[in-house]
């Protein structure tokens, strides 16, 4: 009964979404409010129905309803309560429901917020959002129905992918999907702007904060993904340039480019065409990412399934891009305006360069990700494009971006005078050069490490210079120090939110540099009571214990870690799941600001007399998580409504 209800709800939701998309479009053309009202009701109806689908599927998970195939393949009687809930979106079908639900939620929020404030765009925005929603509901009813029955009904399910049994399962996909789906809003506004011909700045002002919200969630999703990789996958790293990581990274890059180029349009009324293209491209990349993730064309940790779903996403992607390009061509005359710049040395140039670099990185990641496919199709030879390639190609581009991060915010708009350059950059450049010499003197010999760290110091110095100068200006008019600083952050929250985000990125850059340059590892086999040493740590193998958990069998080693004094006992383990052929590594670690000690259990003797252990001392990795936290705080600050007017 439950599955039939869910299936029915999905079909009705699909019909309503289509109805709403059409009536909103008709309402926009005829101007009849009744049509628009009907579309609005349809959208709310879709939200309610998708919520019902979600609730019904969750209920099926909680009650072990193995007559539903999706439940049977993603849970079993041993799955703990918590993972029965997160398991709902642990694979393809459920994640599509989650996706559709978030999209419906965004649609309702857009209705509430912009019904009046964006009257000119609003009907078309509704059409586009409901159209996209209809696509996902189509996938939900035809290509990947979550409520499909299993026959015969198994006595027990297969169980969740063990790698997904982690608390990150609630935060990582949710944040990432909120980011992905959130990018539909700016896309819908961009299309509405093109359709109505109002390609001026109104749509940008309306959607800038929406883009930051989506960007914020996307960043959060990527960072939590990195943390997950670090503490669950057991290889000691946080980013593998896996096709699916790349898939989420690409829209992040283009959205970042958009958030910068938007400022040129706001200031100088230029780049209309470019900004619209970036938004359409960003949305296209989210679909492409889902296609990569869900179609299984490229082997990856995240590729759940194969089948018709790939064709669905590819067709929809083609439709979106063609529509976008068609509309851009149609509005060519309005968009194709000549820009005018006063000088090559200006903030406009810095932002343009920033866009070139971000799009170049996007292209590199895209091409590298699809290249194996290309090679196989073109000449039948399998090749890999992995981390060493992406690192070599992208690091120079990242360094250039960091440099621009220092230049862009401080260089003057229009024309930077020599005086402006000297006032803003002389001190930071000197500090950067001194820092480079300092790092070299401290024994840093890797050229890339010295360069990255020095650039980081340079950019941090530019931010400090700016903040100090602005604070001083406020002190001069009689404000006290802390109120002055707080006032700056809150009244110019967009600018200083941006600065805080930049600081976060700098901290992440230091973490990445440190972990790449200075992490060390070793692997040894220890008898009971024996010790291994690495980078000042001594790790002693104490014993091995086996235990039966609710849905797996676990063998854990106990290792005492000391560096002069005892720091504690780490218990890395191997988990044996009946549904998995090979055991899952369960790492244990001790995090620190400067270095983490990280243990992975390898082979072991059945009698517990000896065990192989991989020992890693990872340097500065914690900076990545701290930087992530700073970055998200900055994004939150930038999302706050501007208070400048009231000042």
């Amino acid at each position, binding site marked *: 009964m439950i599955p039939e209800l869910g299936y029915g709800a999905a079909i009705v939701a699909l019909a309503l979404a289509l109805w709403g998309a059409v009536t909103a479009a008709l309402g926009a053309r005829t101007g009849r409010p009744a049509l628009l009202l009907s579309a609005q009701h349809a959208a709310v109806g879709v939200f309610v129905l998708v919520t019902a689908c979600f609730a019904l599927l969750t209920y099926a998970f909680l009650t072990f309803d193995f007559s539903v195939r999706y439940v049977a393949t993603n849970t079993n009687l041993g799955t703990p309560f918590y993972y029965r809930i997160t398991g709902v979106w642990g694979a393809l079908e459920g994640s599509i429901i989650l996706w559709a639900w978030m999209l419906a939620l965004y649609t309702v929020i857009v209705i509430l917020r912009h019904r009046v404030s964006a009257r000119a765009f609003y009907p078309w925005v509704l059409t586009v959002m409901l159209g996209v929603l209809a696509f996902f509901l189509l996938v939900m009813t035809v290509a990947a129905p979550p409520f499909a029955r299993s026959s015969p009904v198994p006595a027990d399910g297969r169980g969740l992918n063990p790698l997904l049994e982690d608390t990150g399962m609630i935060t990582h996909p949710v944040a990432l999907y909120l980011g992905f789906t959130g990018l539909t809003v700016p896309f819908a506004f961009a299309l509405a702007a093109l359709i109505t011909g109002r390609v001026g700045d109104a749509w940008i002002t309306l959607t800038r904060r929406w883009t930051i919200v989506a960007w914020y969630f996307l960043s959060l999703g990527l960072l939590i993904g990195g943390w997950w990789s670090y503490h669950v996958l057991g*290889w*000691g790293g946080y980013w*593998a*340039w*896996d096709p699916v990581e790349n898939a989420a990274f690409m829209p992040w890059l283009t959205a970042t480019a958009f958030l910068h180029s938007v400022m040129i349009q706001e200031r100088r009324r230029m780049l209309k065409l470019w900004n619209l293209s970036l938004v359409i491209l960003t949305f296209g990349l989210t679909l492409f990412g889902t296609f990569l993730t869900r179609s299984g064309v490229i*082997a*990856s*940790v995240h590729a759940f399934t194969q089948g018709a779903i790939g064709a669905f996403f590819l067709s929809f992607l083609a439709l979106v891009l063609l529509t976008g390009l068609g509309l851009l061509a149609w509005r060519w005359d309005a968009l194709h305006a*000549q*820009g*005018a*710049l*006063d*000088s*090559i040395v200006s903030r*406009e*140039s810095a932002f343009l*360069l920033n866009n*070139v*670099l971000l*799009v*170049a990185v996007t*292209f*590199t990641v895209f*091409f*590298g990700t699809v*290249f194996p496919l290309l*090679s196989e199709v073109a000449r039948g*030879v*399998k*090749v*890999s*494009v*992995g*981390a*060493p*390639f992406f690192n070599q190609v*992208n690091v120079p*581009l990242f360094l250039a971006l960091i440099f621009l991060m220092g230049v862009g915010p401080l260089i*003057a*708009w*229009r024309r930077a*005078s020599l005086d*402006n350059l000297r006032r803003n950059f002389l001190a930071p450049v000197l500090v950067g050069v001194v820092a480079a010499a300092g790092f070299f003197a401290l024994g840093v010999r890797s050229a890339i490490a010295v360069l990255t760290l020095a650039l980081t110091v340079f950019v941090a110095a530019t931010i400090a210079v*700016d903040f100090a100068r602005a604070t001083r*200006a406020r002190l001069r008019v009689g404000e006290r120090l802390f109120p002055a600083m707080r006032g*700056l952050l809150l009244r*110019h929250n967009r*600018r200083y939110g941006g600065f805080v985000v930049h600081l976060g990125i700098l901290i992440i850059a230091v973490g990445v540099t440190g972990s790449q340059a200075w992490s*060390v*590892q*070793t*692997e040894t086999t220890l008898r009971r009571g024996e010790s291994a040493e690495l980078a000042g740590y001594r790790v002693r193998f104490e014993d091995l214990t086996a235990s039966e958990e609710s849905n797996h069998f676990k063998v854990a080693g106990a290792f005492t870690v000391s560096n002069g004094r005892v720091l504690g006992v780490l218990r890395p383990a191997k988990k044996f799941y009946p549904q998995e052929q*090979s055991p899952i*590594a369960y790492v244990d670690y001790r995090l620190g600001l400067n270095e983490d000690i990280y243990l*992975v259990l*390898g*082979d072991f003797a059945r009698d517990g007399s000896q065990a*192989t252990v*991989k020992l890693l001392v990872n340097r500065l990795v914690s900076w990545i998580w701290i930087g992530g936290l700073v970055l998200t705080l900055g994004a939150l600050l930038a999302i706050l409504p501007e208070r400048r007017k009231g000042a």
Partner: protein
Amino acid sequence: MKGRYATAVLLLAVLVADPARGAQAPTRAVTESQVHEVAAELRCVVCQNLSVADSPSEMARQMRAIVRERLEAGESPARVIQYFVDRYGEWILLSPRRSGFTLLVWLAPLAAVAIGFAIVSTLVWRWTRRPASASTPPRVDPAMRERIRRETETEP
């Protein structure tokens, strides 16, 4: 100094020429980071997308052991990598060869940067020439303009 270098090259040439002899040659001290460097270029054959250096799998551990063995026997890193390519095909290389078809993947990013840069510099060049000729500057008295300039520059 020069003599020692020549001896090393000679020794290497002999070892490379005769891998069977290489296996019996006195073992060289090989550090963990040397093994890591080679292993980082190789794909773990049973994993989704991890290098031999990073993978916690048993297969990767054995492959690391082979890397170490061969390096200790005096083989060059390039030769050790070739050993794996001979067995598993180009697929095992995490960064594709910079020759033939796979050169494309290396050139594409360079081309992207070059084209992007060319487009932007052309536009900037064109656009910076416009205001002087096309648009006449608004009539604002110099003092006012100076004030505006000062304020836009110092605005935080």
